[in-house]
């Protein structure tokens, strides 16, 4: 009997050890998703004074500086919706390029996939992040070279005929990621 108990106890210990390892792997994955989504949860604690009548707030917007030879780039931002109903970003344009499209990028089993989307929905009282590894504004056919420190004007068109124009700074990707990724 004692032997049986011993074997059982050992099996359990080994089993628990293996399980703990499995969990550790799981946690690593979690931390990735947390890192991707935890950027700006405090954004909704807003200062009423800076909210326009349309109750949409654009913050942390930036356009990616790229190689001068490239005619495309991407723009990122947070869109806060302080309305009681959902709104949708339907299209965008800029003075710096011929076309702006709404795109979504995702990594699926190690594969980068990109697709054009018709709308980006922002829930009532919620925020949507356009950020690397997720949604971006695809800026196509740049009409000038964009250098870090400059600004471009971006007009966003939402459902309910809401239109918003914002000045968006051009930033260098490397300096951006230095702030975020401590890894």
């Amino acid at each position: 009997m004692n032997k049986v108990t011993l074997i059982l106890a050992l099996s359990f210990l080994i089993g628990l050890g293996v399980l703990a390892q499995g969990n550790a792997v799981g946690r690593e994955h979690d931390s990735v998703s947390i890192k991707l989504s935890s950027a700006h949860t405090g954004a909704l604690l807003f200062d009423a004074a800076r909210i326009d009548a349309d109750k949409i707030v654009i913050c942390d917007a930036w356009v990616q500086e790229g190689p001068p030879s490239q005619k495309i780039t991407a723009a990122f931002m947070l869109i806060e919706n302080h309305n009681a109903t959902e709104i949708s970003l339907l299209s965008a344009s800029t003075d710096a390029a011929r076309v702006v499209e709404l795109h979504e990028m995702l990594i699926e089993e190690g594969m980068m996939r990109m697709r054009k989307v018709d709308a980006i929905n922002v829930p009532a009282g919620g925020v949507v992040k356009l950020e690397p590894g997720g949604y971006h504004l695809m800026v196509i056919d740049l009409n000038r070279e964009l250098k870090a420190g400059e600004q471009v004007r971006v007009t966003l068109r939402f459902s309910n005929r809401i239109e918003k124009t914002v000045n968006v700074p051009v930033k260098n990707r490397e300096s951006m990621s230095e702030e975020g990724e401590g890894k």
Partner: protein
Amino acid sequence: MMSYRSITVCLLLALAFIVGPFSFTVDARIKSERGGRSWRAGSEGANFTLTNQDGRAFQLSDLRGRVVLLFFGYTSCPDACPTTLSKLAKVYKLLGPERDRVVTLFVSVDPGRDTPRVLKDYLRYFRVNALGLTGTKEEIDRVVAQYGARYEIEKADSAAGYHINHSTDLYLIDQKGEVAQRFKYEGGTKELADAVRRLIG
């Protein structure tokens, strides 16, 4: 005294504890094999020939004795490729004076748009010691297969024309031209720099 029944239950539980996580591992492996070709460290990295950003023939064996970081991408890629190149710029920064012993290979999967000239202008922007490689579609496909990578050209309803879905793994190749390690897109810069340092010794 335990009854046979409770012993059986305990044994089954113990078995589940032990086998459970393993079945998970097997699952993941099948998944990755279905996604691309099966891959084993050391089994890839055989030599290949492509064209570099100066329009000259390039062989992986030209870099014997140096550590190589290789990944697949294309210059019209708005997010993933700039992310990887920015990450590599940080790796080079962490490497400090040892940076000259590490060469990055950006293998284009877009021969239609990425001519040697385009690759040269593109890579010059990033603070990475990188060579841009291109070739005919057949030449590129062969290297892609060799590394168990994947890509697919997607005709998009986009003013940017087609776009390319591609695998994002980064291959760390040792001084003998063999793949030492394969990194996921999410991999951190420090982890990468440490692995490079271990190879440099």
